[in-house]
């Protein structure tokens, strides 16, 4: 048979198992060539036998490797795109068995739209021209369901460099795609929320702007005309009339403070706090100087050189409220002694305590006092808006700190705030 073929076509090539003298087997590549004389008459055959056992084993291993891969669809196409081989991964991902798909065109894997738009041809074209195609897209399984694939197509060349087919590696990355889509969706939702919050902030800003303008105008008028009455007509008023005038004026001043404090409190929640190093003692002294207590009224203790990371205008508001409270809530006839102690606290914080010898706060009220409009005393006793400590709490918390109070009723209170310490030995 072999010789007949060789004599008819001039050459016969085959591979197969052969047996050695000792009975062992080897994978042989056999080439039989017909030898003819000048007249063209067959005079014999040349036979070359090569032992290709090693190559045979390597190829088999490689094929088993490819066929066994489950996570990747690895298959080959001829130059027109007809499927010529199929692995386990391909079957798992696409749903076809080798029998069902080998010999069919790979455009079966595309969605109808993509196939119609000529995607399969373009993929092969790109691979042919550029030596490589890589892409992601929807593909269709045998059961019609879709999956998001990552595809690499590489052309296979013969010895002359002609493209004889393609190898194709496909991964099902639907989960990753879904994750990416979810992330994108989430990012988009966040953006929408941010925009909404910015819009709300802008509205609140506009609101507080008009409050500060429109609500304070009538207050100015009340205070202004009450003063005008007193200045211009004071001598004609008896004591009762003067008292009425004073009531009007003090009410308008209180209202004015209330508006200011509310604006400050509202603003604290919205504005962006630019944090930098702030010197504690310098800030406290300037706050005391600005208020009516005077800078020398504060007694400093501890490591006053310390600096904290804070938003300076907010820290000033916090200190101003704590210091004015420390001097305000005093027993009648007692001289206020206010000590400010600074010390290192845990977790890289600095604790600043404002310690007074005032009336103190009963334990059951210590949580409540940090809430807006919570007041423990009548206006006659201790005037105030009930917003000061709420400003302290929100301000400190927005600066990444903590706030609290310790107190012995009748003996005094210690309000403390903890703020992030500034790195030491660094210029501000």
């Amino acid at each position: 048979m072999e010789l007949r073929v060789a004599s008819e076509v001039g050459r016969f090539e085959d591979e197969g198992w052969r047996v050695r003298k000792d009975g062992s087997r080897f994978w042989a590549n056999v080439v039989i060539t017909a030898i003819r004389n000048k007249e063209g008459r067959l005079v014999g055959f040349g036979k070359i036998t090569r032992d290709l056992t090693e190559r045979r084993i390597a190829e088999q291993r490689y094929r088993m490797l490819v066929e066994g891969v489950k996570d990747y669809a690895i298959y080959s196409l001829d130059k027109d795109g007809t499927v010529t081989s199929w692995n386990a991964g391909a079957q798992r991902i696409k749903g076809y068995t080798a029998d069902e798909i080998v010999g069919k065109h790979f455009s079966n894997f595309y969605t109808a739209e993509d196939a119609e738009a000529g995607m399969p041809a373009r993929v092969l074209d790109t691979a042919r021209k550029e030596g490589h195609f890589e892409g992601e897209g929807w593909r269709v399984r045998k059961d019609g369901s879709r999956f998001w694939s990552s595809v690499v197509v590489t052309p296979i060349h013969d010895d002359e460099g002609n493209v004889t087919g393609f190898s194709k590696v496909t991964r099902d990355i639907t989960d990753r795609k879904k994750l990416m889509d979810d992330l994108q969706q989430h990012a988009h939702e966040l953006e929408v929320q941010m925009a909404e919050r910015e819009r709300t902030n802008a509205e609140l800003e506009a609101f507080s702007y008009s409050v500060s303008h429109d609500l304070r105008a009538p207050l100015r008028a009340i205070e202004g005309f009450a003063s005008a009455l007193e200045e211009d007509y004071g001598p004609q008023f008896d004591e009762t009339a003067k008292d009425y005038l004073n009531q009007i004026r003090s009410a308008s001043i209180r209202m004015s403070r209330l508006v200011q404090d509310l604006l400050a409190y509202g603003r604290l929640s919205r504005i962006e706090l630019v944090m930098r190093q702030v010197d504690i003692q310098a800030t406290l002294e300037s706050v005391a100087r600005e208020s009516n207590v005077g800078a020398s009224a504060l007694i400093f203790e501890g490591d006053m050189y310390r600096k904290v990371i804070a938003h300076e205008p907010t820290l000033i508001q916090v200190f101003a409220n704590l210091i004015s409270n420390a001097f305000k809530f005093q027993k009648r006839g007692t001289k206020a002694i206010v000590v400010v102690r600074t010390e290192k606290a845990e977790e890289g914080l600095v604790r600043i305590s404002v310690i007074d010898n005032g009336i103190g706060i009963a334990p059951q009220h210590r949580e409540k006092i940090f809430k807006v409009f919570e007041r423990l005393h009548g206006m006659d006793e201790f005037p105030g808006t009930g917003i000061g400590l709420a400003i302290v709490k929100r301000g400190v918390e927005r600066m990444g700190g903590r706030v609290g109070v310790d107190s012995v009723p009748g003996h005094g209170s210690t309000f403390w705030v903890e703020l992030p310490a500034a790195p030491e030995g660094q210029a501000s």
Partner: protein
Amino acid sequence: MRQTDPVLLLIEDDPADARLIQRAIEKVDIPAKVIHISDGDKAVAYLAGEGAYADRDQYPLPWLMMVDVKLPKRSGIEVLQWVRAQEGFISSTPVVMFSSSSHGVDINAAYHYGANSYLVKPESSHQLQSMLSLVKSYWFLVSQFPHHPDQRGKSAAN
């Protein structure tokens, strides 16, 4: 009235504020006739000498303008812009903007469009008088006003 007499044009829509400011001006004795205008459109009509304000003897050009930032119709800033955009002498008029707003946006807009000063309305009448006393000292005692090409040849201090 001769145009050489100093005139302070007060443009303020809130009648209470206007009254209180006028009273404070009297108290600190600013040496100028105060003319009060209650909105932005009227202010522009006054300055342009249009309609009811055509008579310059009765409605002379101001030496100094005090303009509330927030006004109905044309805002204070728009009045300021109008003043600065004029061809003639009016464009040189010193303008003091004032407002209950200490918002950076308002302040910057005022200076951007050529305000000479920006004052925030104080909370109390006492503070208002202090402020207007400073306005008097600065504008009417130490500053020189622009010279009108025809009539105005001297400052209020002379």
